[in-house]
């Protein structure tokens, strides 16, 4: 029934690619593809997507997945707002962002597709594979809704196909609700010429981790095979995405797993946390395996206790981190100020979500930058860094621990929901034994040496640890002198504040200016930070392809800022930031230039460089697609004061 007519996943790239004829079967080679699986909550779409994505990665494709998460655990079935699922972008080249619109979407019901339409996730020609069971529903309302939706989608220009997902699954299991996701993985494996044995292996690993028996594994293998066979029978044209060998060993995981493994590799001993979306899964990964590496996860009674426990462990000479998200950062504020004041090493991971208040719990935002740097009362200088990739999620944990100890300071690591939940490939880290070293200088403490023997130039001092004879001191959050004695004298307070601030300058002196992507001078420089890097660079590539001279910089260090920014900014006609946080549009209605509120990095750069840094930012609750950034760049390049989405 689907002969030929059904063989147009129609990625723009498809048209140009030569097809290869193998008997009746045509296999088209394409450079990349964006696939989505969407469903009601709890139908296993994410599991299916993760397995399919892992298979793609294991076939040496580039990979980036995005979880589509409803706010509730189980929103009403067939609800337009409750779409749950996953996007999988895979390609020949490394993939560093979610891309623009999907090429193919598998939907377990038609209603959830509406939310994808609202999100702008589909384009004319997107192939929609929809479970046809709703057309035969006993409920006339459902049948009517189904038909109406098909007509809506058809007239919107999507390539709509009904496929018997539930019906075919039912031939193998009494409960297709719990099996259809695997059938779909089989289907996708056939459409994209994936190695079905790899999929079987992933299924086996997954079910063994969940302590499921062989019987269930065998059933799921049969479902994979059935989905595969059905696609082979009904799809005449299939696709392949050639691989470029990575040349080095790669691993595939999401950003929270990378943070968790990075914490283990950094020699962390204590992860003290309180559950909060989207940070918690990092602690889940740790909780499962941390004890093998000599660490523990403490689930505290609240966010405040979580950081207090970590600080207590750190004071006692142990490496400690706490993992949270924006609301948790707000609650921890007082303790974070204490960590600065009393110079207690601590790694704080903030997996940012939409704010303020409870905001968008499952969705991405880069809204905690300024709160991180300036959030505590008084002057509280500390180190703030932001990974821009999964590889950095891992390695920045090692960096953070090192900086925390060397500079005797809290170090904030700003990840976000995009990195946290996206699966991507990264080179397998070469774990160094050195990273696991004990946290402290263990030479004897000189009798009478002060607890804060600040070096006048760098503000750095060595810290005594309980157990160390001669080092006994009372750490305090009150103003204190070198001996940690409470001291309210103005000169002592001024000096201690100097010393704590000087550490930040000393760290900046050790940093190199950021690398520039694209043109090293020209019309426009785009400055970003964190998870937006991949999408920004893709947008820069596109406008450069049209002859524009555009560069981009991704800042990993936010406090201190990387050096040399004024010089770099001076090489471009215009400088702007692109961020996922709020800003007023340039001369937007109701916002005269004097009242314009800038995005957070732009605030920071304007204040520190005195360059007239512009910004474009959005808070869509999802990663910025390259297309949106591209449009913003073009509008700035054309000199428009206002840009539209």
């Amino acid at each position, binding site marked *: 029934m689907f002969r030929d007519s059904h063989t147009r996943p129609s990625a723009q790239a498809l048209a140009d690619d030569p097809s290869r004829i193998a008997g009746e079967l045509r296999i088209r080679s394409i450079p990349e593809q964006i696939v989505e699986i969407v469903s009601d909550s709890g139908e296993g779409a994410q599991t299916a997507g993760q397995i399919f994505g892992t298979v793609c990665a294991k076939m040496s494709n580039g990979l980036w997945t995005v979880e589509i998460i409803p706010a509730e655990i189980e929103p009403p079935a067939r609800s337009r707002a409750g779409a749950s699922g996953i996007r999988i972008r895979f390609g020949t080249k490394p993939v560093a962002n979610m891309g623009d619109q999907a090429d193919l979407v598998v939907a377990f019901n038609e209603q959830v597709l509406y939310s994808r339409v609202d999100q702008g996730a589909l384009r004319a020609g997107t192939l929609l594979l929809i479970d046809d069971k709703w057309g035969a529903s006993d409920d006339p309302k459902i049948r009517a809704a189904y038909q109406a939706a098909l007509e809506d989608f058809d007239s919107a220009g999507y390539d709509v196909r009904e496929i018997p997902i539930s019906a075919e699954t039912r031939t193998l299991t009494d409960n297709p609700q719990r099996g259809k996701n695997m059938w779909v993985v089989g289907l996708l494996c056939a459409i994209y010429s994936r190695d079905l044995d790899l999929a079987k292996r992933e299924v086996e690993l997954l079910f063994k981790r969940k302590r499921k028996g062989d019987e269930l594994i065998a059933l799921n293998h049969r479902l994979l095979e059935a989905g595969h066979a059905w696609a082979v029978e009904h799809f005449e044209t299939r696709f392949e995405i050639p691989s470029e060998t990575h040349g080095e060993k790669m691993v595939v995981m999401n950003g929270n797993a990378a943070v968790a493994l990075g914490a283990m590799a950094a020699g962390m001993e204590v992860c003290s946390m309180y559950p909060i979306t989207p940070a918690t899964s990092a602690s889940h990964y740790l909780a499962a395996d941390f004890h093998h590496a000599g660490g523990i996860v403490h689930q505290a009674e609240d966010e405040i206790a979580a950081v207090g426990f970590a600080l207590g*462990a750190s004071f006692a000479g142990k490496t400690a981190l706490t993992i949270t998200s924006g609301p948790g950062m707000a609650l921890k504020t007082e303790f974070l100020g204490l960590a600065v004041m009393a110079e207690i090493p601590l790694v704080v991971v903030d997996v940012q979500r939409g704010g303020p208040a409870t905001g968008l719990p499952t969705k991405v935002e880069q809204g905690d930058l300024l709160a991180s740097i300036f959030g505590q009362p008084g002057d509280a200088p500390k180190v703030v860094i932001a990974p821009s990739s999964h590889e950095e999620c891992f390695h920045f944990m090692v960096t953070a621990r090192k900086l925390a100890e060397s500079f005797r300071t809290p170090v904030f690591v700003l990840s976000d929901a995009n990195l946290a939940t996206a699966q991507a490939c990264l080179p397998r880290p070469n774990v160094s034994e050195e990273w696991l070293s004990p946290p402290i200088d263990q030479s004897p403490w000189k009798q009478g040496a002060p607890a804060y023997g600040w070096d006048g130039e760098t503000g750095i001092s060595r810290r005594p640890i309980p157990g160390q004879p001669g080092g006994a001191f009372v750490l305090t959050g009150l103003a204190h002198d070198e001996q940690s004695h409470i001291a309210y004298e103005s000169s002592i307070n001024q000096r201690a504040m100097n010393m704590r601030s000087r550490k930040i300058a000393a760290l900046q002196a050790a940093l190199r200016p950021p690398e520039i992507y694209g043109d090293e001078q020209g019309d426009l420089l785009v400055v970003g930070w964190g998870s937006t890097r991949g999408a920004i660079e893709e947008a820069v590539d596109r406008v450069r392809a049209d002859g524009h001279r555009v560069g981009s910089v991704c800042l990993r260090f936010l406090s201190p800022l990387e050096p040399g920014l004024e010089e770099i900014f001076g090489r471009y006609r215009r400088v702007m930031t692109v961020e996922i946080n709020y800003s007023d549009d340039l001369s937007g209605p109701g916002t005269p230039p004097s009242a314009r509120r800038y995005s957070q990095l732009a605030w920071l750069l304007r204040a520190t460089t005195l360059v007239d840094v512009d910004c474009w930012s959005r808070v869509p609750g999802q990663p910025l697609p390259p297309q949106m950034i591209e449009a913003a760049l073009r509008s700035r390049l054309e000199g428009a004061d206002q840009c539209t989405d």
Partner: protein
Amino acid sequence: MYGLKSDWLDESTPRYYTFEDYEGATARWCSGCGDHGVLTAVQRLCRDEQLPPEKTVFVSGIGCASRFPHYMNAYGFHGLHGRALPVACGVRARRPDLHVFVATGDGDCCSIGTAHWIHAVRYNMKMVVMLLDNNVYGLTKNQTSPTSNKGSVSNTHPRGSALDPINPIQTSLGIANASFIAQTVDWNPAHLFATLKAAHRHPGLAFVRILQRCPHFKSGLFDSLMSDPSKLLLMTHPDGIVVDDVVKKQFVNQREHDPSDMSEAREIADSQDATPIGLFYRNAAADRYDAFTSEGIATSRDAKLAALEKQLDRYQI
């Protein structure tokens, strides 16, 4: 051991610590403040138990009582209002070699830090928690505390406080996994010392509420307890707080109470008659969270590396 150099653990020549070895900065509490007596009792305890100062950590929050660590010669952590207990639990988590003491007040423990109090008692990690309860906020100058009596006049309740106070003993006895709940008074050095000693030797979290005089803002609050022996009830038992007969004789009201009997402990705590002092409850076999948190302390670097590689194998393409 414990990831720290082993030569920290023993001095090459064992020495005898004197009382003076535990003296820190000169205490700046008001004269007549009950905290002075507690400080002396603790210094005596450290001396008698020969706790090396470098192996002893005093953790506190904010308030008059929380200045305690500064007046000891030991490691100290004078942190945030209400947050002494999470810090102390963190200190204890991976350092079973340290002796951990917490000094907290009624505002610190029973108001702003209540969540931590409940959970720390349940965690039951080995430490001594001293609640120095003077029924008032002293450092911020005379506000109502959660343990202030109904009707007591303060700057925040000039017409008298509206509600009955929290009874910290009743509350503590209601917490799952509580393992040592005692009450004593600052003005009876012998009972105070005996209570702290029993607390220190208890294998778990020992919660000791110390009724503590504040002559500045609560002058005379405990006068009747001090002048009229019948207002106190001494709980006695061989497994309880054991004091000399000389001390015992000061108490006209005595009641034998087996500290393993929780329901009787609650009955005594609920009683509106005399103020009970002694050990309400003890369960040396209660689960200890520090047994969990100290797992794997001795994991070797090789074992850690092997564990990491195994994890990475899982994600290998």
